[in-house]
């Protein structure tokens, strides 16, 4: 019933657990291929490359002018009657929201899907204060009932089959078992409607916010984003500082790029644009509107040369094309953000470089993510840069560093290289018993390598020998 992947376990353990689950890769492949195909169809009908180019230009401009745009956005939110809070890190963001909840005697919070609040583990923090947090996106609600964490940026419950969900509803809500998704959905509607009507505070993330007008925009299909931003007395939007767009035109460009890239929809069902608390005489809407602007490593990412990844619009397109994601699932990445973009930003955001040092290697560098990205973020390049930073920095384990130093010593001396290659040729043939199969195990200390992968047999002759034979006496220039 539970995901069989322990997200607290080391990366290699998580991968083993993911690969050992026989249905996981099938489920993920089916779901991600569906999303990928929908995206292709929706982009076929328009000048997709022009949309990507315009998005890239707009996002680059936004980043270049981010400090000024943040100040403009803050000014406009305040002019609209809202309040802006700045948080340097996760702790500060949690503290701000916790204090807001205490000031308003909040006992229950309704939330719409938000990666930003997952990033800071907000629910955990609020629950420690005795505040109930209800996730209201259908997928997130299921995840919360199952006490798991989301496994996909836009489809959090992508790893669960319907019979597993039915079992969960039977256990937690005493609902008779059914394989009718509409029946499960109707039951969730009834449960969650009561929560919306009785909650004291609504919390959402933010898909993008307009600097020129002080407007926070959230994109949903179910309408929970509307509920959360309409019914409770206090509405809090939590956003990373990179989520701004300069103008309303930019906002609608990003909106349409996002919907097509995420799910292949031309438009989602709802785009909710909030410019402040309810106005005088308005029938409904929150009495208070707060925005939490959160850095949590983003300004450092920019300064450290990873600014390109701050253009991400969280559509999930890179997950849907990633061969590694399909094998290890979102939980394999062990972080809020999974897939290729998660492999880049998780180590940078969390300051847990050491725990996440393996993530930049959770990629085959095939480049499908870069081709799928609606803002053309060069994810393979960023992963390589991260690997480089890891190796040159102090994060690399001693054994690996010594091995690399040894290799460098051998590779830079032709005679030593030839000798080693000859030894490896003989060695691998001996180990294979003069067969032609890949080696599953190498002797210590090289067994570390073969724990996760097979080792191919060396060719019977080296390239140099082959070349010498083929071209007579002339050897390759060295």
């Amino acid at each position, binding site marked *: 019933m539970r995901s069989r992947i322990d997200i607290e376990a080391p990366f290699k353990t998580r991968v083993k657990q993911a690969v050992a689950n026989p249905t996981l890769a099938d489920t993920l492949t089916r779901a991600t291929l569906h999303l990928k195909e929908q995206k292709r169809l929706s982009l076929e009908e328009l000048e997709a490359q022009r949309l990507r180019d315009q998005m890239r230009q707009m996002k680059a401009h936004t980043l270049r002018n981010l400090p000024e745009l943040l100040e403009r956005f803050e000014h406009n939110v305040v002019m609209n009657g809202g309040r802006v809070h700045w948080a340097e890190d996760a702790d500060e963001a949690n503290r701000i929201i916790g204090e807001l909840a205490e000031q308003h005697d909040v006992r229950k919070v309704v939330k719409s899907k938000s990666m930003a609040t997952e990033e800071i583990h907000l629910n955990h923090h609020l629950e420690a204060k005795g505040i109930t947090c209800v996730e209201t996106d259908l997928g997130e609600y299921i995840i919360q009932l199952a006490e798991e964490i989301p496994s996909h940026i836009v489809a959090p419950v992508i790893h669960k089959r319907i019979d597993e969900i039915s079992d969960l509803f039977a256990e937690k809500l005493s609902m008779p078992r059914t394989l009718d998704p509409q029946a499960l959905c109707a039951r969730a509607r009834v449960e969650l409607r009561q929560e919306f009507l009785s909650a004291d505070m609504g919390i959402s993330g933010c898909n993008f916010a307009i600097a020129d007008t002080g407007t926070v925009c959230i994109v949903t299909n179910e309408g929970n984003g509307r509920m959360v931003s309409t019914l409770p007395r206090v509405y809090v939007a939590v956003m990373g500082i990179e989520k701004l767009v300069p103008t309303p035109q930019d906002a609608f460009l990003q909106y349409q790029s996002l919907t097509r890239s995420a799910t292949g929809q031309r438009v989602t*069902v709802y785009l909710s644009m909030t410019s402040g608390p309810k106005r005088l005489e308005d*029938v409904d809407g929150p009495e208070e509107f707060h925005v939490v602007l959160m850095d949590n490593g983003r300004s450092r990412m920019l300064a450290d*040369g990873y600014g390109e990844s701050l253009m991400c619009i969280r559509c999930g397109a890179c997950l849907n094309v990633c061969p590694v994601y399909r094998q290890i699932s979102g939980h394999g990445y062990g972080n809020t953000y999974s897939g290729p973009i998660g492999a880049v930003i998780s180590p940078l955001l969390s300051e847990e470089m050491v725990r996440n040092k393996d993530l930049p290697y959770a990629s085959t560098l095939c480049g499908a993510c870069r081709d799928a990205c609606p803002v053309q973020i060069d994810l393979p390049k960023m992963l390589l840069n991260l690997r480089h930073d890891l190796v040159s920095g102090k994060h690399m384990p001693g054994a690996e560093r010594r091995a690399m130093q040894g290799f460098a010593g051998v590779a830079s001396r032709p005679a030593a290289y030839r000798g080693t290659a000859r030894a490896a040729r003989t060695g691998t043939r001996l180990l294979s018993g003069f067969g032609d199969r890949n080696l599953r195990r190498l002797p210590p200390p090289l067994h570390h390598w073969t724990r996760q992968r097979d080792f191919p047999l060396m060719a019977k002759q080296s390239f140099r020998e082959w070349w010498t034979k083929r071209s007579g006496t002339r050897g390759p220039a060295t």
Partner: protein
Amino acid sequence: MDQAIRDAGTRNVSQARQRILDRLRQGLADPKLPWPPADAPPLTPGEHMHVATLRAEDAGLEQRFAGELEKLHGSSDIADSIVGARMFTVQKILEWLDDSGPRRVLAWSELNSWIPGLEESLFDRHVEVVVPESLDNPDTRADLQEIRVGITGVEVAFAATGSILLKSTPGQSRSASLLPLNHIALIPGTRLLPNVETWLEQHQLDNSLGHAIRNSANLTLVSGPSKSADIESKLTLGVHGPKELHAVLYPVPG
């Protein structure tokens, strides 16, 4: 004491603000920064591409709108007169109000300004039009919960995507398009445009775009009934918002 705590709180807040902005400015000042480029021009108004556009084969805005909304699991009637629009609207509402539930609709104020005589037509069929002034009272909320049909106008509608834009104002509740299981939207021809970009450009031209976005607390773009594909990528309708969305399109005389 309280004052001291408040001051400390303010100081902390502004410190975070200053530190974040300083770090960003310092980072951006580095000439070797790989991204963003030093020269990063904005998209100027009018430069933004029209993402969803009309096609040569579209018979007209109404037909395109209806076709798109149908693809989004909504439905519509295209009336050729105000009288026809009134008839379609009442018919749909009566179809939704079966005998078991209350004969009440949750509405925006002044329905007659959208379709003259609509309030009287509903009254004649014993349908009560409920226009709440506030949702603050829990009893009001519980009461409105029972209503199964919502009826609203639109700020503007976009044919290329089958979308309607709803604006919150003192007479125009968000709840009418959100709480009930069924929503009917009245779209006069004068408010139907090809796409959202057309609307943005119109406001840009007369310098009213900022006002159009922020002069109400909430703008919502709605495209079809509430839906989810969270369970095994299978479509489910009416997750939180309405399960049915019906549009009535009609011409406005002179």
